[in-house]
């Protein structure tokens, strides 16, 4: 039965309404004349709704005449009518087809490059390197030899230790691992001295090999030789060894900060202006207009307009949001300014002190006058300042 349904659908059928008193006779005659009708439903006493194949519709005329009934078509269904509809709206379906082809074609290009794992290396550099090897926004996926590109990038960028490129949809996901470069290692067999990396006062000098040139309590300058690897002994030839020592020293870090008491602060007024424009690849489709705010913050947000999972198309909507700012004169209390100074100084000095150093003392001095607050921080720490230096 299902097969017949499909067949009828392919041939096309009509839903007809038959009106008349001799419905039964109408049906019987249709059957006898080999006219296939189906899904016959009685609507009321004299009306019947039924379905009939298109090619049989003309043949109903005789039966209609014989049974004094009337037939009207309610609707036409099936494949031939769909075809006719498509022909009538040829341009529409043709452009629909073109769009499908276009989208399919577009999805075989790379439209977005995502780089993950780069910390110190600028993403731009990696992008440029990928560009030179042929992976860029708009390159055809079929011609990309990913293994080759990976190798070439690794050769061209020695600061990378690994790169993995994955094509997902229209995205290229590039994962990189940076080489962590330690200080240049000096081999155990090479002779070396130990010098001071910073100014400081030696608190403890533990020499494992080599001759010490300074003693505990000496103050040393940066670059000064602390332990020498050149051994001079009486009656012996001078020889050079690889010196080893642990040099603990007190060092100082200083910094200063000034904060004026009268400050101009910019506060958002709540007025926001938005501007949109389209961006196709890197070409912007509309011009950026100016804003009539005097002071403002500008935020730019880019969004991909069309993206289906991993299939991203290179049309971006760029939103420019301008927030108007209002300058306001603000007078700080002395204590507030001091707190601010302290906060900034602590944050800044923390970046300079090595992690394994021990902080012995921290001192902050404030100098206040009418206009501003000045602060000076000095931190005394205990750290290892010995650095190996090769003997030439």
């Amino acid at each position, binding site marked *: *039965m299902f097969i*017949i349904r499909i067949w009828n659908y392919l041939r096309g059928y009509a839903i007809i309404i038959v009106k008349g008193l001799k*419905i*039964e006779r109408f*049906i*019987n005659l*249709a*059957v*006898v004349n*080999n006219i*296939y*009708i*189906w*899904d*016959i*439903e*009685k609507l009321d*006493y004299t009306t*019947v709704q039924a379905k009939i194949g298109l090619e049989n519709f003309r043949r109903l005329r005789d039966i209609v005449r014989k049974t004094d009934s009337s037939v009207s078509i309610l609707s036409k269904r099936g494949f031939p009518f769909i075809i006719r509809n498509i022909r009538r709206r040829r341009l529409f379906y043709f452009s629909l087809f073109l769009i499908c082809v276009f989208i399919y074609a577009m999805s075989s290009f790379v439209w977005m490059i995502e780089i993950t794992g780069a910390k110190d290396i600028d993403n731009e550099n990696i992008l440029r390197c990928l560009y030179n090897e042929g992976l860029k926004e708009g390159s055809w996926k079929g011609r990309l030899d990913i293994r080759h590109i990976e190798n070439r990038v690794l050769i061209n960028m020695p600061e990378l230790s690994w790169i993995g490129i994955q094509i997902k949809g229209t995205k290229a996901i590039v994962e990189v691992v940076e080489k962590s470069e330690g200080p240049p290692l000096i081999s155990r067999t090479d002779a070396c001295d130990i010098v001071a990396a910073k100014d400081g006062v030696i608190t403890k000098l533990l020499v494992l090999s080599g001759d010490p040139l300074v003693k505990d309590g000496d103050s040393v300058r940066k670059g000064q030789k602390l332990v020498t690897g050149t051994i001079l002994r009486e009656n012996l030839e001078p020889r050079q060894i690889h010196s080893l020592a642990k040099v603990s020293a007190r060092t100082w870090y200083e910094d200063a900060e000034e904060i004026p008491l009268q400050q101009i602060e910019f506060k958002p007024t709540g007025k926001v202006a938005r501007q949109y424009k389209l961006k196709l690849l890197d070409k912007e489709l509309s011009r950026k207009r100016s804003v009539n705010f005097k002071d403002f913050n500008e935020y730019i947000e880019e969004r991909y307009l069309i993206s289906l999972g991993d299939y991203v198309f290179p049309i971006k909507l760029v939103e420019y949001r301008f927030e108007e700012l209002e300058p306001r004169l603000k007078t700080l209390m002395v204590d507030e300014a001091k707190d601010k100074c302290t906060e900034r100084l602590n944050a800044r000095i923390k970046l300079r002190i090595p992690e394994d150093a021990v902080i012995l003392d921290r001192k902050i001095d404030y100098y206040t006058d009418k206009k501003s607050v000045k602060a000076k921080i000095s931190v005394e720490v205990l750290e290892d300042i010995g650095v190996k230096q090769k003997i030439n």
Partner: protein
Amino acid sequence: MGKRIYKLKENISNTFELPKDIVLDVSKIIIIGTGQVTVENHKGIIEYSEEIIRINIGSSVMKLCGKNLSIKTILQEEITITGEITNIEF
């Protein structure tokens, strides 16, 4: 004469276990649940409404009663009726 031939046919079909609907030219009625009735080898419909359908099955008239009865398909040798069937009479 006709009766004799009919008897003979019946005997033959009994002896050789042949399907009677083919040999004797009578209707075969298949009832599926209470929702569908298929009559093979019918002789046309006599009355058709939503509540009652009467079908000529050669030797007698079959009367179907129910609700929302409709003719799913009708061919020369087969008719399928769907709907809520309550009574079948011969």
